[in-house]
């Protein structure tokens, strides 16, 4: 008879073996305007079933070639994105833009190493400093979907302003608030606005690098742009300012709630239990994102409240 430990190892291997090998995201580009496509992620958290595909990625097929906006959460995603583009056009990829530093937007960069990868200066620096940390944590959250993924730092710095590519006049707008550098792209040829993670739709906004005050200003800027379609970083495409208002509403509710709780003397763990109106609670992954936001934002708010207390120290 085989020793027990060999039996156990064999048992485990039999069941784990099917998990090895390339993972299929089943990417389906959706044409939202002439030559303009988006790949919609699910409104969930990173997990072992979605493989990190919770993000919206876009591309524009111009006369000269293809402009890609964000590369997805993993090497597999990046490769499958490139294959999906190849099924639609045989024009070359001209450039990939990374809208900001977060892992779900940049970890597919590996599949675009042969073309310029452009991002705002702050984003390039952020990816250089924190990319590896993101990559590690994505392996923990999405497992085998991340196989072979490594960080590729953008190779070109975006200067805000207009660029003309293959008949598309693109306005590159630098904002901040969701992260310290958020690139938003308005295509004046089609009126499509790629708002990246400055706008969330139907999904709770995330705040790991947020400055809520700046973010609200960024939303005002976006609301003033002349767009026909808005592609949020997460959630479905909209034709109006609904998603902008929803994002603003959430951020305002969040900061009001945290400030009030700190002012009432609640401890951080007590604030974890949300007390939210239906319009907030119905947002996808509300509970998880709210708890994360408490950890991101409450310490600073609380410190201001405690520092105003009257303390005598000899």
């Amino acid at each position: 008879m085989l020793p027990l430990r060999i039996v156990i190892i064999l048992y485990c291997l039999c069941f784990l073996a099917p998990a090895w090998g390339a993972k299929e995201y089943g990417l389906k580009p959706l044409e939202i305007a002439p030559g303009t496509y988006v790949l919609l992620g699910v409104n969930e958290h990173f997990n072992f079933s979605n493989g990190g595909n919770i993000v919206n990625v876009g591309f524009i097929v111009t006369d000269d070639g293809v402009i890609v906006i964000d590369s997805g959460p993993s090497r597999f995603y990046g490769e499958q994105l490139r294959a999906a583009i190849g099924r639609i056009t045989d024009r070359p990829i001209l450039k990939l833009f990374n809208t900001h530093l977060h892992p779900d937007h940049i970890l597919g960069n590996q599949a675009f190493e042969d073309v310029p990868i452009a991002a705002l200066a702050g984003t390039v620096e952020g990816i250089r400093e924190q990319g590896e940390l993101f990559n590690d944590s994505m392996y923990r959250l999405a497992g085998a979907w991340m196989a072979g993924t490594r960080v590729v730092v953008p190779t070109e710095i975006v200067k805000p302003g207009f660029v003309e590519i293959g008949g598309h006049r693109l306005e590159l707008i630098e904002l901040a608030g969701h992260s310290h550098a958020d690139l938003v792209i308005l295509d004046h040829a089609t009126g499509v606005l790629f708002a990246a993670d400055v706008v969330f739709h139907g999904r709770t906004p995330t705040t790991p690098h947020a400055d809520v005050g700046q973010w609200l200003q960024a939303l005002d800027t976006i609301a003033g742009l002349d767009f026909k379609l808005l592609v949020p970083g997460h959630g479905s495409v909209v034709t109006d300012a609904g998603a902008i208002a929803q994002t603003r509403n959430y951020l305002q509710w969040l900061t009001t709630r945290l400030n009030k709780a700190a002012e009432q003397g609640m401890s951080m763990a007590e604030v974890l239990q949300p007390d939210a109106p239906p319009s907030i609670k119905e947002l996808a992954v509300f509970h998880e994102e709210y708890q994360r936001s408490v950890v991101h934002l409450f310490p600073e708010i609380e410190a201001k409240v405690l520092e105003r207390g009257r303390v005598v120290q000899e």
Partner: protein
Amino acid sequence: MKSIGQHLFLSCVFLCCLVNPSYAQQGQTDPLNSPMWEDMRRSLLGGAAVVFDDRVQVLAPVDAEDSMNVPVLVDASALGEVSKIVVFAELNPIHKVLELEPLQAKPIIGFRIKVQQATPVRAAALAGDGRWYVGGRIVDAAGGGCTLPSIGSENSDWASRMGEVAGRLWSNQDSTRLRMRVMHPMDTGLVPGIPAFYIDHLEFHDANGEILSRLSLHEPVSENPVLTLDLPRRDSVTVVGADNNGNPVNARFLPGKHEVEK
């Protein structure tokens, strides 16, 4: 199709059945099913029998977004009289987090901890009937919280603010909540070249010098500890204590707040 998670789970169940047929022998089994529970019971609770009881509430996030700062609040007030609360995170390299003797305060304590990996965070409350009641929950984590240097120790001016206290009192009819923060690196001693350096005891007094509550802290408490206590109603409260190197912590909290111009 079964997910990897299910396969792993089945594999683990299979392994556990083989190696650990008689898991818990106390009257009640550990609801968190932790491999370290028996060790904790022996080393921290003197091997006493315990009752797992939801009346010992432990509030904490499901997932530690920041392994250096996991917010926790323990509330054992549903048990009535409680003479001691011991808090521990058993899969941390240093298990014991703090010990509260409520004395005149409510058996409630708020704080933040560092976690090295996913771990149960538990509180054991010694109730008036002489029994330990235990509550807790599992906090998932990416980890690393205990073996990373404190942010302060990487900053050259941390020493000039060490021991600085901020805080405020919130009073209602029968109790006064104290929330306070002390600047201190709270080094665990697990980072090479940085010895353990942490505030280890604090006492809370009223203006007449009467002791209201007593707290001992350990290495896993987060840097610049932020503490929440519910004391009996008083107009002012004094905290007196020290770190493990004898540096004093001393501050008096007065009612009200400074108004700031907006």
